[in-house]
């Protein structure tokens, strides 16, 4: 994200009601630091599979879908770095199992399936999850992990936050009680 753009956006959103302190400009030049980590090396076919999975969970509607927001690229980062090791392994194994299931049932990979068949396989995965979670001491489950990570990846992406939701980086005011009309998007933050 270009911070100069961000600052411009800020002043726009604040409706020009605030003058950014002169020193704020200096922040722009603060060196990008510790939180820049390299992306994991993921094979293109796996990225395609992740995109298909994410798009099945959050497809394109009148707002962009998960892969439009690049969720397939953040999923491996979140899965590898943020999950506990057991959940991480369940996720990657589950992804392979989903693809294998597709190949044995439909003779083609999950990514190559039409949307209704992807939904069918994922519905079965959700059913399995519902059975799984009612067991005592149920551990992590592929469907739940995949869904949670996709939601996180999508709604915190620039595309998801600004198009599927309403994103105000600097609201500039607190309006405590406003009328709400059905259909208006939720705030991203």
């Amino acid at each position: 994200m270009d911070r100069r753009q961000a600052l411009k956006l800020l002043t726009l959103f604040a409706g020009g009601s605030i003058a950014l302190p002169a020193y704020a400009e200096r922040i722009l030049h603060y060196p990008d630091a510790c939180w820049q980590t390299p992306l994991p090396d993921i094979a293109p076919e796996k990225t395609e599979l992740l995109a298909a999975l994410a798009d099945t969970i959050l497809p394109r509607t009148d707002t962009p879908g998960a892969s439009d927001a690049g969720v397939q690229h953040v999923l491996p980062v979140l899965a590898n770095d943020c999950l506990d090791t057991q959940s991480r392994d369940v996720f990657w194994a589950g992804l392979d199992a989903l693809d294998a299931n597709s190949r044995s049932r439909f003779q083609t990979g999950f990514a190559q399936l039409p949307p209704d068949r992807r939904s069918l396989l994922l519905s079965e995965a959700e059913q399995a999850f519902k059975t799984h979670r009612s067991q005592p001491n149920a551990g992590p489950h592929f469907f739940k992990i995949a869904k949670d990570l996709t939601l996180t990846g999508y709604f915190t992406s620039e595309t998801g936050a600004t198009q599927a939701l309403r994103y105000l980086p600097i609201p500039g005011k607190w309006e405590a009680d406003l009328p709400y009309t059905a259909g208006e998007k939720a705030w991203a933050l």
Partner: protein
Amino acid sequence: MKKHTYDAIVIGSGMSGGWAAKELCEKGLRTLVLERGRDVRHILDYPTALLNPWDFPHRGRQTRAEKQDDPVQSICYAYNETTKHFFVRDAEHPYQQVKPFDWIRGYQVGGKSLLWARQTYRWAAFDFESNLKDGHGADWPIRYEDLAPWYSYVEKFAGISGNKDGLPQIPDGEFLPPMELNAGEQYLKKSIETRWPERKMVIGRCAHLTVKHNDRGPCQYRSLCERGCPFSAYFSSNSVTLPAAARTKKLTLRADSIVHSIIFDEKKNRATGVRVIDAGTKEMVEYYAKIIFVNAGTLNSTLILLNSTSNRFPKGLGNDSGVLGHYLMDHNYRVRANGRFEGLGDRYYLGRRPTGCYVPRFRNLWDQHPDFVRGYAFGGRATREGWTRGYGQDGFGAAFKDQISVPGDWNLSLHGMGECLPRFENQVRLNTEKRDPWGMPTLDIDCAWGPNEDAMVKDMLQTAGEMLEAAGCKSIQVYDSHEPPGRGIHEMGTARMGRDAQTSMLNAWNQLHTVPNVFVTDGSGMGSTACQNPSITYLALTARACDYAVKELKKKNL
């Protein structure tokens, strides 16, 4: 020697140290502030302040490595990818948990004033009297009237937004305009106050600027406060007191300076200076001054005093009574409650208000609960659920996506904040066997909740649940997290104020009873906790002690 001599030394640059620096500098004293951590310059060193969620590789989430590397700090609600640079690394700063105790710390210029939750409530008159009344702890050597003008003094400079609610349990102060309750909170307030007239709900009082104040702010309602505020709209040492101190040209701020101990001169019966370990070179240097303010943060202030031994004070500076290290307390934040409210679907809000609402103490004010003494307050908030509710819902696909992209029901939540009794057995001890990477002794922390806290939790669970129930909430969850002390990050006591040197460390002016040129004005001096967030009280005590110290210095009594 001359180069290392100042009028005053302040140990620590956090909440209370920053204020001490401002007062002493403004009164004309050449003041050296020693900060053990790195420098954090206002705004320049807030690298994440303007970043969007998608600018972070983990979108702000904690990583597994962070949980492993910082098992204690990462428990804190404010610790994540966007803020972790303001927390210590656990491995570098060891301590021993004799019983579970989460010690959350931010070692840098500004300390935890960058990270605090910014809630600011005065203590009530009865809070200063409760120790005397029920016999737990030592009687406070001051009363509300002693501190009231100093509350006003610090509120005016810091900038506190709030409403004058006219409630004796949280006396009104000098307030900037309050923020407003949203529709869900107005509804909850009405519901609570109708059913229980003695219970009130008010807007949170907080160190946020609702209007421009002393060339700072106003708040932009981003609620990303813990990253540091580029609008200077909340109170921190970095944004308010240290700049004020620097403007006098009397301030010398030395970061990366770990205070080892205070130097005591037996002949003069005065402290003459401090020994400092340079965090980079590990060399020991000495600095000298006429007065010393100890503001290292509750447990570190006590660690320094315990480590300042001499023939006269073999158990730690000023510790004739033996109470140094004892009577450790923390607020009890174990109880959380939330519920879903299905009405008010046609109301929403704009902006992210950086405070919640507040149910001031209502127990043991007019009558006495059979099971516990003292009392508790609730913090609260109403929000309309956003996309994150999707985590807990079944389903996926187009309809699911569209449904979680619009606001859901209201979520009403309350969290209990309970007073903790001072008990001798809750304590810290110096461990000279286990040392930190700079060779400093570490602390054994031996602290646990007692029966009064547990009884209070039981009542909180009951009252929180019944308030959400009366409001017509569905899917109500009320629970005791059983979290250990420390998690409230309001550690108090261990060098308490009191009326005499036999039972306390500090007198009515936060001055060591037995070493008159040493003042301790952070949380360590607290003789009880009340249930209010403590920082504003530390600030008032600090300003008052500085005023006294400088007057005494001029009278040549120090």
